[in-house]
């Protein structure tokens, strides 16, 4: 190695930070034996330090760090275990909700099943009542004829609720209730609801 070679190598030498870098070891050792090179090296490392210090005097604009922190984006890390956990929770929630809905539906249906009640009110000819709002003593004859002829019969309870009167399976109730048309009676029977329409399957009729 000569002075020129050593200088070429030591041009990149920055001081302490490069002391462990083996590419400088031989050139640094050579500089110890060459006073001129050692002086050149001191000057260039001092110059390096000065330039570094000058560049490090540059300060960022005020508030830059706060701005960066404040505007930090919310990261979405694609963590598959978390995604699967979330999917499982959604699936379980959906299943529980579906089961609850089904249970609630069944409960509602079972609540609408046959229930024995007593209803007191006027026997109606449903055709005239629904079509023309006809009821009461003035319409008694028509009602009796209509019911007897097989048109649907009903009873309007004292609370205003109207039930369609039915017999047992395959049995018409018309003949039994026709004589009570437009009269107030108490009927014992089983209440059912179909599509929101109240029915009363007659078991016993008591005239008041």
């Amino acid at each position: 190695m000569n002075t020129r070679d050593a200088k070429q190598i030591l041009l990149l030498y920055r001081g302490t930070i490069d002391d462990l870098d083996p590419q400088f070891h031989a050139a640094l050792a050579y500089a110890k034996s060459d006073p001129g090179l050692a002086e050149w090296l001191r000057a260039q490392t001092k110059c390096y330090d000065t330039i570094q210090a000058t560049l490090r005097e540059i300060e960022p604009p005020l508030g830059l760090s706060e701005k960066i922190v404040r505007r930090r984006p919310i990261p979405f890390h694609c963590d598959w275990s978390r995604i699967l956990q979330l999917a499982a929770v959604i699936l379980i929630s959906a299943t529980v909700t579906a089961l609850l809905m089904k249970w609630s539906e069944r409960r509602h249906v079972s609540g609408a099943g046959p229930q024995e009640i007593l209803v007191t009110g006027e026997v109606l000819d449903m055709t005239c009542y629904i079509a023309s709002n006809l009821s009461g003593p003035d319409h008694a004859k028509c009602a009796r004829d209509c019911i007897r002829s097989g048109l649907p019969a009903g009873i309007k309870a004292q609370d205003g609720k109207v039930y369609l009167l039915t017999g047992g399976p395959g049995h018409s109730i018309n003949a039994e209730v026709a004589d009570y048309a437009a009269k107030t009676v108490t009927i014992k029977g089983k209440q059912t609801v179909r599509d929101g329409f109240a029915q009363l399957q007659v078991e016993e009729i008591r005239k008041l």
Partner: protein
Amino acid sequence: MPADLEFENLVNVYYRDLYRFGLSLTGSEADAADLTQQTFYIWANKGNQLQKPASVKTWLFTTLHREFLKTCRRQNRFSHESIDERTEDLPTVPANCADRADSQTLLRILGEMAEDFRAPLVLYYMEDLSYKEIADVLALPLGTVQSRIARAKIQLLRRLSETNLPVEQAK
């Protein structure tokens, strides 16, 4: 440590260095601030992918440099002085050669260099990065980085000497 606090600490440790690097590359305070912000935002989204926590600094500088190169490709607005290929004539460096150069002068001289030379030289001066780390940041072979630093350094010293002191050429 909570993620927010970790991010804030990271910003506080590195934002100055990144800003200076950005300013040396762009010559514009606004662009340097944008690059610094962008670098940390990329970190916020992708930093968790970093395998070695010890290389955070290198990762940040690499990211800023990449973002800068993207900007250069978009804008292509820089005109630079190419570096003289001759490395044989090493200038004699007076110890006080940079004493009278303020940061603005240094930035101006750096800004006149081609980006290929400016980035390694800035990392060489500003950051306590090893040559291997500088090569990693710039995605260049180690030999290329050292060669560019040497040539750019000679150019810088020449320009500084022209500004401040007469230069003696080494024999």
